[in-house]
């Protein structure tokens, strides 16, 4: 039973980080229909910026966490400005391929820095002795990570519901032409969507970095696992991304806990999400909460 609770809790922790990473991906897809393949690299750069600020520049961890979010906010805004703004109006296939190119470029840049090949960990910030919850242990970093994720998601949903900018973003994702006609600048909204995606990605990266330590391959994997999560949740649903993230985290932890080692299976947590993804695409391609597109000629 303790084992089950332990898996449940770690699944929730991992799942909430997945939710946060998937959020940024959905933001970009919702506003501009672009599948951002480079999302994992943005997560990684957010984490590395936070680390560089903490360790090399000596900024306190909390401040550097928020500072890295701000930096990535502007970085991904710049990426949108430089690479994607001039592709507006081009077929969406070439925009997606540009993000594949971006993924490769950011990979290369990170390999140039010492972060590409070495493992690092953030300085300890929270009390080292873990919390005891129904017999299972949870570290303070995990608790704080989950709380932070919840706060960011709540803030974003407030932003989309109440602020003018958020409402105009929702308008653009609904109908670009109509929103242009009422005076919303669509390119600006695209830029903002990328910037917000960068912000959430940096937050996700910082939390992952604090929980598991900094390893480029791990952070990279977090970027690719986003795809099964968003397909499960429905590509254009923010709420779906959150629910699906948590479901995917639970599935992974339970798979790792109960399947590995039995029947000669290994590393099932790495592959199960993708198998689920392929099956979902076959039978329920719009996921749990995605909108069904109705085509009329």
């Amino acid at each position, binding site marked *: 039973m303790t084992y089950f609770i332990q898996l449940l809790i770690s699944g929730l922790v991992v799942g909430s980080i997945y939710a946060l990473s998937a959020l940024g991906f959905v933001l970009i897809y919702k506003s501009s*229909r672009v*599948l951002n*393949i480079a999302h994992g690299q943005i997560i990684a750069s957010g984490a590395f910026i936070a680390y560089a600020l903490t360790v090399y520049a000596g900024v306190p961890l909390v401040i550097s966490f928020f500072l890295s979010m701000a930096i990535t906010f502007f970085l991904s805004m710049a990426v949108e400005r430089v*690479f994607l703004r*001039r*592709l507006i109006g*081009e*077929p*969406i*296939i*070439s925009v*997606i*391929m*540009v993000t*594949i*190119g*971006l*993924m*490769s*470029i*950011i*990979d*290369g*840049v990170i*390999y*140039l820095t*010492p972060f*590409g*090949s070495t493992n690092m960990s953030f300085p300890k910030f929270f009390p080292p002795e873990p919390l005891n919850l129904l017999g299972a242990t949870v570290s303070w970093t995990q608790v704080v990570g989950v709380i932070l994720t919840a706060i960011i998601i709540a803030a974003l949903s407030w932003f989309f519901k109440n602020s003018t900018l958020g409402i105009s973003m929702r308008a653009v994702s609904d109908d670009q032409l109509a929103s242009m006609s009422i005076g919303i600048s669509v390119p600006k909204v695209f830029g903002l969507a990328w910037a917000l995606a960068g912000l959430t990605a940096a937050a996700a990266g910082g939390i992952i970095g604090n929980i598991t330590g900094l390893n480029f391959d791990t952070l990279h994997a977090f970027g*690719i696992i986003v*795809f*099964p999560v968003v*397909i499960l949740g429905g*590509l254009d649903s923010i709420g779906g991304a959150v629910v699906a993230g948590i479901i995917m985290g639970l599935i992974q932890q339970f798979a790792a806990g109960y399947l590995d080692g039995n029947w000669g*299976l*290994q*590393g099932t947590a*790495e*592959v199960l999400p*993708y*198998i689920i*993804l*392929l099956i979902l*695409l*076959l*039978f329920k*391609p*719009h996921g749990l909460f995605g909108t069904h*597109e109705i*085509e009329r*000629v």
Partner: protein
Amino acid sequence: MATNRWLATGNFFTSYKEEQRIFLTNIDRLCLWLLIAALYAWPFFVETSNKGMLVLDNILIAMVAILGLNLVTGFAGLISIGHAAFVGVGAYTTALIASGLGTDHVFLTHAWPVVIVLSGMVGAIFGGIVGLPALRLKHLYLAIATLSFQMIFQWVINFSKLFNQGQTMSVGRVFWLTGKVGRKDHYLFWYFAVLTIVVISGFLVRNLLRTRYGRCLVAVRDNDRAADAMGMHPGFTKVYAFALAGFFAGIAGSLHCYLYRGAGIESFTLHQSISYLAMAIVGGLGTLSGSFFGPAAIRLLDLGVENLSSWSSTFLPSTMNIATALRPLTFGLVIVLFLMFEPRGIANWWRIIKSYFKLWPFKY
């Protein structure tokens, strides 16, 4: 109208049949045959090192793979981020035959063309399976399906004993009319073999694009609703595009396996998939000649990067692994720059050069 079949200035077609011709003029035809003859003949006159030959073999194998990728991404308009995995399916089919029958079994060493085609078929089956979601959904979701196939493929290879957990599985040397192909002639022999396959599959694809089965790929890419209204099935067309891509990828994989005399996971990773995509983009998506320019350009660029990184490692600290950094960096830059400034790729430069000579002395 009696037309001069040797020289033509401008395009004057009076029937669809004329427009469908592979060669516009007899000069075009002559040039191509001369080029192919030259490609076959030059190794007899020029002495080359094994290393140089290996580079050429790699370029030719990549050409076969890119013919497939160009069919699915260029002509049918579906992004495939898992092409290296399909190549891997072909390679591991050959490697499995080797480990099942023994590395020097007659089937593997004498009937190698059969093995190559068989690997292509297995690749086509996997391509079709990955393409199946196309029956249900539109747009570019399929890119995600191919990406997940890439991840599943890597996991299966890395974690199963059958595939030696990603370590190299060896394949024996093949036989030809003159007997066993020895160590000295290995790369030269495969140069001729792969060149033949490139020529055959180039003609196959060119002719496919003249038939309804090829044109329906382009129709579905350009407007799937209109294609639907004209009696094509967009879903099946996409599945069939993926199967075709898988077929060529499988052949390329099998050739790779024979050339390196084994298959290992490191040649079929996500990075490799991206470099295949770079080749298709640089060559020119949706053009046949681009499938030949792209691999050559990217492999030569790769060689340049390798030389640059080995040169720079003489004065840079050894902790910096410059080769692993520069390769994705250059590939990514090449993809992005080409998409932004020359989306039609090198094939477009080739088209401009050709039309310059065709229209000479008039201005383009």
